[in-house]
């Protein structure tokens, strides 16, 4: 055992996928101990929510998970709808599923691409970002915003889809699987990327359950747990889809599960577009100043990072008494010191990328 060296990564480091600081204790190049320091993006969104009306909180949820804003919108709106007993029209549910599956593609592209960049293949990021831009363009047609959509509202969605949007989505879903096959060859077929990712940061299935991991991090370890199937919400029971599951629980499997999920998302979107009927997209008589009866509600959805839950307590006033966000990125990030131990410093970056944290959601 040689002398230990303490290295500080971050908070402004290009490889930390956000403003994360990691204090690493190194023995040579091997990580002996690492400590994640979070809170550099703590904006107090949960506290702010206590001073906002229920409708005013929706833009705040956009800024929680800024890579996948639609998820936070939807999780929050589901909690409000449960609290206030609002029934959402069927077409709105279909639109929500379509935009969230599109968002899953956009979000996973920001994880698979950097996985290539972390392992030294920057060009993969160009390919995946191109796909993300196409999704962002679709969202721009839908609601005018590229990033913070404010689209899913309590009671439905803010507006119906524009004319021709469904055809654009179909066209994207036709081309996307081929693009993913290309990325698969380019990244996962590359011997350097395979050697950098295979067997790195292995998370066993019992550990994934014990540490509360969810989403692709848990599924990469072989835990077949997906809220879309196992706690079927919205219209997911009517749709036929597979849940991709890895076997080794290493960085390679986690990244590959994300890639396959994108292709499954395309299937889901196509089915939802086929089944969707015209109709209202907003529940009737949802007041601007929503004052749900006193009580509490928790609802969760499967976001791109795992099970995203929102807990709301109402005291009968137009402002929530308390909002709590169960963030999957936060729970997954807690695994980093455990996974990185015994690997080299450069592998720590790959492991951090494979956990796919978004610090807006981690720090809230």
């Amino acid at each position: 055992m040689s002398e230990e060296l303490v290295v500080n990564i971050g908070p402004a480091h290009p490889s930390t996928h956000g403003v994360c600081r990691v204090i690493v204790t190194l023995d040579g190049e091997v990580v002996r101990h690492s400590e994640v320091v979070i809170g550099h993006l703590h904006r107090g969104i949960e506290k702010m929510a206590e001073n906002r009306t229920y409708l005013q909180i929706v833009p705040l949820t956009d800024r929680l998970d800024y890579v996948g804003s639609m998820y936070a919108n939807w999780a929050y709106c589901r909690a409000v709808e449960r609290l206030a007993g609002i029934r959402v029209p069927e077409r709105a549910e279909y639109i929500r599923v379509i935009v969230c599956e599109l968002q899953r593609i956009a979000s996973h592209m920001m994880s698979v691409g950097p996985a290539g960049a972390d392992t030294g293949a920057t060009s993969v990021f160009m390919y995946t970002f191109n796909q993300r831009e196409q999704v962002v363009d679709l969202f721009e047609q839908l609601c005018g915003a590229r990033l913070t959509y404010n689209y899913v509202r309590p009671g439905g969605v803010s507006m119906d889809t524009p004319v021709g949007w469904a055809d654009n989505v179909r066209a994207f879903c036709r081309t996307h699987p081929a693009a993913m096959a290309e990325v698969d060859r380019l990244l996962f077929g590359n011997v350097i990327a395979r050697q950098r990712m295979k067997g790195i940061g292995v998370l066993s299935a019992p550990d994934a359950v014990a540490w509360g991991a969810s989403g692709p991090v848990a599924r990469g370890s072989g835990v077949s747990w997906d809220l879309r199937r196992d706690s079927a919400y919205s219209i997911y029971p009517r749709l036929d889809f597979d849940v991709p599951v890895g076997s080794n629980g290493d960085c390679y499997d986690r990244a590959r599960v994300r890639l396959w999920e994108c292709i499954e998302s395309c299937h889901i979107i196509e089915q939802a577009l086929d089944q969707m009927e015209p109709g209202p997209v907003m529940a009737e008589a949802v007041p601007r100043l929503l004052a749900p009866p006193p009580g509490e509600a928790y609802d969760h959805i499967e976001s791109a990072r795992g099970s995203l839950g929102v807990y709301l307590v109402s005291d009968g006033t137009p402002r929530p008494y308390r909002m709590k966000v169960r963030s999957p990125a936060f729970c997954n990030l807690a695994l980093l010191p455990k996974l990185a131990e015994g690997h080299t410093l450069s592998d720590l970056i790959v492991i951090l990328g494979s956990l796919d944290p978004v610090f807006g959601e981690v720090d809230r």
Partner: protein
Amino acid sequence: MALVDDLGKALDRSPGGSIILTSVDAILDWSRGKSLWTMPMGTACCAMELIAASFSKFDFDRHGTIPRPDPRHTDVMVVAGTITHKMAPAVKLLYAQMPEPKWVIAMGNCAISGGIFYYDTYSVVRGVDEFLPVDVYIAGCPPRPEALQDAIFQLRKKVAGESIASGRERKVEYLLPRPEDPRKGDLAAEAEDGEDR
């Protein structure tokens, strides 16, 4: 910079020197303006648009603007996203590490004023101009990548007025009054004090 400063002053004083001075200035400002390398200080949502600006669809490279994560290689710091009180010392330290001449772009409402996080929160710095001298502000939550590219063009206009002799800079007309320069005392020393993040 001391030698260059003296050189500029000496040229300005010597007879006929101002012709050389203005020529040197023109070449320097042209080369600086056409290769503004950015320090992407992306913290939150705006960072996504910052990334998008340099990727294939918007292609920042064609304007000579390349993101470099090392502050020592860069000319302009793009502050994209919310700066919290916990993050501010790190931003200050990185700004202090950038070589002169350096500029700052405040991208997005959070970097301008705190934006949506202005009220009711206890942890957000209300605008990066509380501790950095900002040259260009881009409004939007988040601004589009085109807006960021426009900011680089705006900054180029400003860079074109700089001179190596102090006092010879061309004045830039601003639409709005500029906020006071927040650099009181030595910023580098201040950043050193902020080491205990």
